[in-house]
């Protein structure tokens, strides 16, 4: 028998290092440049990948064990939800508009993140970030799938869910989120990490993920909120990865600071525009509201974000350039965007509606400086037209911002009565923008943004040529069922009928 090996006790950190970064080696049959061809072109300098601090230490056996535990619970609950008509426990079927937007615009983003992190998990020449990115890659496909599974039961009973895969690629408002993720994925691995890992997962998660999932909890949506709880610990891991990434880049070389700052400026504003969808949900679409968009911004934007950027100041990082304009826009954006969604609701695969008197009271309380002054009169006007039997629809072509892809419905900073438009010329073509920040983003990388696919012009080009009916068919929109006002919709009548079946005889 051999003498027992003299094994020194390894610390957790040392052990994890043996189980991850020690697996790699210095290649000699191929060059590092050929193995990791995309690691340098963005200009980020990394001198020592060993300086990477693992944001979490999770070996695969532990990962399988914990995740399987969560999966078991999740599917047990959504099975019970389906079996027991859980959809009738929601506050009101108006709530489903928020879910429809989520499935059409956000869940595809989870898949894109999966793909992007798989790429980052291959392209970084350091094992530490590679392993962390790979774990996020597999988590993100989990999120895409569990979201689809959580909402699949709603699709069996309600409109607007059935064509999410088609609408992801074709309908106009999803291109706001799609272009965001396409933008991140077409960037290099470092910018991708600032875009998704840092800006999206760290700075904006609390303004996107939390409101949607809290909205689900407040409105009795057992299925979606179960997804939310199940994904919470994954999200926490993703946040620590995003933060470690930015710190690592900033610490490696001072020359990285201005590059990172530019990305923060860009991705904060890109993300803030995507949040336009969330703001309408929080202020208008939830029958039982969690908090106003303004309140959410105060907590998760001003306070948390403020603390974060104070912390990053020691590296020479300042808050994103659009920060102050964003803070001001928060009092307007949900109203401006919801008015736009309402007037174009013939072209949305979710319902909108005119806020009730009670809703307007709430809005006026939450937005004392802006709602009564600027937005109540417009809703009152729309309401009057509706009562007169001439509902307000805008069949005109909305100008879309070349960068963020939202219709240019937002107002000038400091002047809520003037619409904000910017234009720039590039190689003889004119491009439209919703704001200075979107225009600046374009000017940094015009060759990228001139490629943007704009869904509105597509309606007026061959083969649709402005034929609205053909367009609806092309985006798989069932006219009269998926779109339009909630009042009188199938969703409304079915929900009332079914609910009555389960509560009376």
């Amino acid at each position, binding site marked *: 028998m051999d003498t027992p090996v003299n*094994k*020194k006790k*390894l610390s957790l950190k040392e052990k994890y290092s*043996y*189980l991850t970064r020690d*697996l*790699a*080696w*210095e*290649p000699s049959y*191929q060059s590092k440049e050929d193995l990791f*061809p995309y690691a340098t*072109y963005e200009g980020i300098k990394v001198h020592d990948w060993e300086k990477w601090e693992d944001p979490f230490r999770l*070996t*695969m*056996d532990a990962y*399988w*064990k914990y*995740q399987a535990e969560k*999966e078991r619970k999740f*599917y047990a609950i959504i099975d019970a939800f389906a079996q*027991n*008509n859980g959809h009738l426990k929601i506050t009101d079927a108006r709530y489903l508009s928020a879910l429809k937007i989520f499935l059409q615009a956000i869940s595809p983003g989870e*898949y894109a993140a999966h*793909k992007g992190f*798989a790429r980052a998990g*291959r392209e970084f020449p350091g094992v530490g970030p*590679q392993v962390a990115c*790979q*774990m996020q*890659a597999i988590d993100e*496909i*989990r999120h*895409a*799938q*569990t979201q689809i*599974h959580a909402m*699949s039961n709603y*699709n*069996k*009973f*309600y409109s607007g869910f*059935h*064509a999410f*895969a*088609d609408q992801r*690629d*074709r309908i106009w408002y999803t291109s706001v989120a*799609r*272009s965001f993720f*396409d933008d991140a*994925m*077409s960037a*290099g*691995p470092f910018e991708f990490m600032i875009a998704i890992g840092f800006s999206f997962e760290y700075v904006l998660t609390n303004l996107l993920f939390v409101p949607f999932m809290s909205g689900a909890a407040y409105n009795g949506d057992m299925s979606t909120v179960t997804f939310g709880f199940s994904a919470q610990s994954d999200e926490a891991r993703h946040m620590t990865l995003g933060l470690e990434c930015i710190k690592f880049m900033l610490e490696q070389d001072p020359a990285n600071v201005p590059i990172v700052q530019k990305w923060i400026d860009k991705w904060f504003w890109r993300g803030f525009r995507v949040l336009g969808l969330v703001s309408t949900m929080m202020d208008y679409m939830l029958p039982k509201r969690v908090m106003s968009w303004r309140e959410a911004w105060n907590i998760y934007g001003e306070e948390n974000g403020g603390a974060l950027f104070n912390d990053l100041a020691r590296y020479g990082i300042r808050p994103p350039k659009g920060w102050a304009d964003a803070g001001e826009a928060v009092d307007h954006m949900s109203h401006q965007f919801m008015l736009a969604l309402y007037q174009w609701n013939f072209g949305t695969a979710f319902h909108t509606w005119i806020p009730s008197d009670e809703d307007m009271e709430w809005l006026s309380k939450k937005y004392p400086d802006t709602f009564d002054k600027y937005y109540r009169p417009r809703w009152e006007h729309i309401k009057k037209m509706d009562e007169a039997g001439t509902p307000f629809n805008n069949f005109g072509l909305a100008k879309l911002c070349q960068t963020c892809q939202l219709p240019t419905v937002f107002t000038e900073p400091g002047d809520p009565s003037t619409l904000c438009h910017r234009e720039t010329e590039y190689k003889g073509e004119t491009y439209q923008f919703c704001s200075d920040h979107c225009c600046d983003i374009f000017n940094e990388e015009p060759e990228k*943004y001139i490629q*943007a696919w704009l*869904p509105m012009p*597509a309606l007026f080009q061959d083969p649709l040529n402005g034929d609205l009916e053909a367009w609806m068919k092309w985006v798989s929109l069932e006219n009269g069922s998926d779109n339009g006002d909630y009042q009188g919709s199938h969703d409304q009548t079915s929900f009332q009928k079914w609910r009555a*079946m389960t509560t009376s005889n």
Partner: protein
Amino acid sequence: MQIDLRTVSIEPVRKTFDHLARRFGDKPASRYQEGSYDIQAAENLHYRPTWDPDQELYDPNLSRIRMKDWYDLKDPRQFYYSTYTLARSRQQENMEANFAFVEARGLQDMLPVDLKETALNLLVPLRHAAWGANQNNALVCGYGFGVVFTQPCMYHAMDNLGISQYLSRIGLLLGGTEALEQGKDTWMNDSAWQSLRRYVEDTMVIRDPFEVFVAQNVVLDGLLYPIVYERLVDTYLASQGGQAVAMLTQFMTNWFTESKKWTTGVLKVAAAESPENAQVLAEWINLWSDRAVSALLPIVNTVVDERVDEMVSEELDAFRARIAKTGVPL
């Protein structure tokens, strides 16, 4: 005996999502179908990658393999995240029990000295090969086309990482950190291992996702796992008193048996798509299996002295017979 609970039954207005109804007919879809088909953006992609403007963001033309529909390459195991993690979680429970069994009885210290030495020399350098496999599968997932083909590659990449971690734990258990250092030195410098390392590095610069899939998952794993784990560990070492080692590599043996159903399934569909595909696959498999065999021979030789050529060529024959059944004309 049967009891029937009564529930309020509401007739669904629709059975499934449009894209699934188009593929599978208007009937309820499985969770594998819901979570896998068409969830990748398919048209109106916004920008070309700045890292390679010749590519599309999702680009089927990165490969010489051509498919009319990449969603034909489905996973016969029907793994989506949930079924995958549940399967692996059961396997890791077994592995935990196996490690605990060996450690509680001190079986690692009862192994004959030279057998332990042999096991360490064979298994520990392979943790690096498994990391190479992880890199390759991350690439196939990242740049391959169509979710049903690429999602199992992500699972496979994580499996490769898990395997490299089990191999590291075996090294630590049998020989401490010195064993890992020794194993890395072997991987880097021992002449018997250099062809394998070269194989791995050479596959890591390929950017055709399907060729990487073939060179790594079909060919290298298709030869390495039966030779190393079935022949050398489970048969040879076990017969010399190394059953404990075989307990510690049980995951790898079972994993290979399970995952070759997937790899051969994919191969079969890709080959049946067109004679051109079948030809490209044959070319890749011939090229890489020649190299894999010559990379594995010297490694087998460090474990056994006799019948080395015979053992390897038997495994090669078995491999070629398995491939022949997929319709690839070798």
